[in-house]
């Protein structure tokens, strides 16, 4: 690093410029990554946060939850394999709600679940509801931003049915809309308009069955049941409308940024290396090992990429503080570590052609040269 450090010291402006470029690129990489993660979370957090790992959907529904329809006999078959407590039906419907006394209109997704089952909402504020409760719902906290409070009365725009907000859950979104948890009894009334007498833990027909199963059980489910598909949580998330498209385009941006940073560095260091060809010849003639020179180049790249990364991490940290709450932005430590190491890795890959060039320089070039 003796040479590497002194060269940076001597050509400050040159290396500062490349550092600024890398700083901007790495900042953008981190920002878009955070945005992609945030959007993904806002999109599918309700599914992601479910403790169940497999979903049984109708065979011709192309894995799409809302297109699928199953009934009691499917549920019985599934429960026969994984056990009663590991399979629970879920019904969903997108709708628009308004709130009495409030000038609010919001798109939501109703989730009808067994309030005693494994995917029952985890209330963080307010009261839980049971399968016997009538006319109460648990809603995602995001609705709080529109002014809805515990005790507020919301009404479904289409049917006019009114429901009281009993409690809030956190991080429960589906297809970018807040989830409203409703029990089977109210679901019947919401969808059929008929109030059923007596409590039930699930409606007669529903969209899918959420299952907690081992992979062996999942295989036997798929093999044993006719006309249904067993999909993993990942597959379920990928088939949520818009999810793949949204994540795909953001991922493409991130991938391009990585490639751009590698190419920019590659070109920069290649030009500098070519400029220094005769210097490398001299150094080799004097007895400097090729490996020493190669590490010198790699050391510079590493130093530049890591230091610009550190600055952009600080900038991202500062930015997170001033971003509005509604902005979907999420960067957790594993993602940060992965993105940062990818960035440094790509930088090193970009510097490889310079290293190859250095390795190729012959000590002979030192003799008989007039030029500097």
């Amino acid at each position: 690093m003796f040479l590497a450090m002194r060269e940076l010291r001597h050509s400050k402006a040159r290396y500062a410029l490349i550092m600024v470029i890398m700083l901007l690129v790495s900042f953008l990489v981190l920002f878009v990554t955070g945005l992609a993660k945030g959007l993904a979370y806002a999109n599918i957090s309700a599914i992601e946060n479910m403790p169940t790992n497999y979903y049984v959907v109708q065979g011709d529904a192309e894995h799409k939850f809302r297109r699928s329809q199953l009934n009691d006999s499917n549920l019985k078959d599934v429960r026969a394999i994984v056990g009663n407590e590991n399979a629970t039906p879920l019904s969903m419907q997108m709708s628009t709600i308004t709130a009495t006394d409030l000038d609010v209109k919001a798109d939501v997704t109703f989730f009808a679940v067994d309030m005693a089952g494994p995917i029952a909402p985890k209330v963080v504020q307010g009261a839980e509801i049971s399968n016997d409760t009538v006319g109460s719902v648990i809603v995602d906290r995001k609705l709080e931003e529109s002014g809805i409070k515990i005790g507020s009365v919301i009404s479904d725009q289409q049917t006019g049915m009114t429901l009281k907000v009993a409690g809030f859950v956190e991080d429960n979104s589906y297809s970018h809309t807040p989830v409203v948890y409703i029990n089977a009894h109210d679901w019947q009334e919401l969808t059929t308009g008929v109030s059923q007498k007596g409590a039930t833990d699930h409606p007669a027909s529903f969209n899918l069955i959420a299952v907690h199963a081992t992979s062996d059980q999942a295989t036997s489910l798929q093999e044993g049941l006719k006309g249904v598909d067993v999909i993993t949580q990942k597959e379920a998330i990928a088939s949520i409308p818009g999810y793949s498209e949204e994540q795909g385009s953001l991922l493409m941006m991130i991938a391009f940024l990585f490639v751009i940073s590698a190419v920019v560095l590659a070109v920069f260091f290649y030009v500098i290396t070519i400029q220094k060809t005769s210097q490398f010849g001299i150094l080799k003639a004097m007895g400097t090992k090729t490996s020493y020179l190669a590490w010198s180049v790699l050391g510079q790249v590493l130093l530049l990429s890591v230091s610009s990364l550190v600055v952009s991490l600080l900038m991202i940290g500062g930015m997170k503080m001033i971003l509005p709450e509604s902005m979907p932005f999420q960067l957790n430590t594993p993602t940060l570590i992965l993105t940062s190491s990818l960035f440094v890795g790509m930088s090193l890959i970009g510097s490889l052609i310079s290293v190859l060039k250095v390795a190729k320089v012959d000590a002979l070039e030192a003799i008989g040269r007039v030029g500097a």
Partner: protein
Amino acid sequence: MTTAKLVMKQVTKTYGDGDSTLSVLNKLDFQVNEGEFVAVLGPSGSGKSTFLSTAGALLSPTNGEILIDGESIADKNKAELTEFRLHKIGFMFQNAQLLPYLKVEEQLLFVAKIAKLSSSESKKRSAYLLKRLGIWERRNHYPEKLSGGEKQRVAIARAWMNNPAILFADEPTASLDFKRGKEVVQMLADEVKREGKAAVMVTHDERMLEWCDRVLYLQDGILLER
């Protein structure tokens, strides 16, 4: 007793293959002893660069034997030759060829560092060399701030830094005017005598020969005395 620092026996260097071969060095015999400063002259195209590269362990000869400080370089691989050059050979190049981003003192410390000399030892030696060559006051300057003569003096110091057995100088006066060129050659000659080393200078400048112990002419692939 004088010991030979460089011995070249029947050295041949041939370029090309098949029908069109060109022997730049043709069974060349040469010996440089301790304390000797030898000049090699030749018109351009006579193979001075090839001669220097071969003698300086940068280029393997096609045939013949080369001993530097009593050690044969024939069966060394590339990495071993690099290591060998680092410890046994000092180079001076045209235009000094200092690294533009190292200060004068660092130029010397760097070669000591890659030779794994301890830092206190190398500091001492670089100070000693820089003082003796009269550039101690310039030790914290970058090469761009030095005159051509000063640069070559730094190059002399750098070449001697690792205590090599022999120094090869490739046209060290090419970019200097007569007065400064003379100074540099004089210093080179003094160093050879004082350190008990040997030096070979390739040049085409006949005015620089008065401090050399021997002058040889490279002609038709061999060295001739005149």
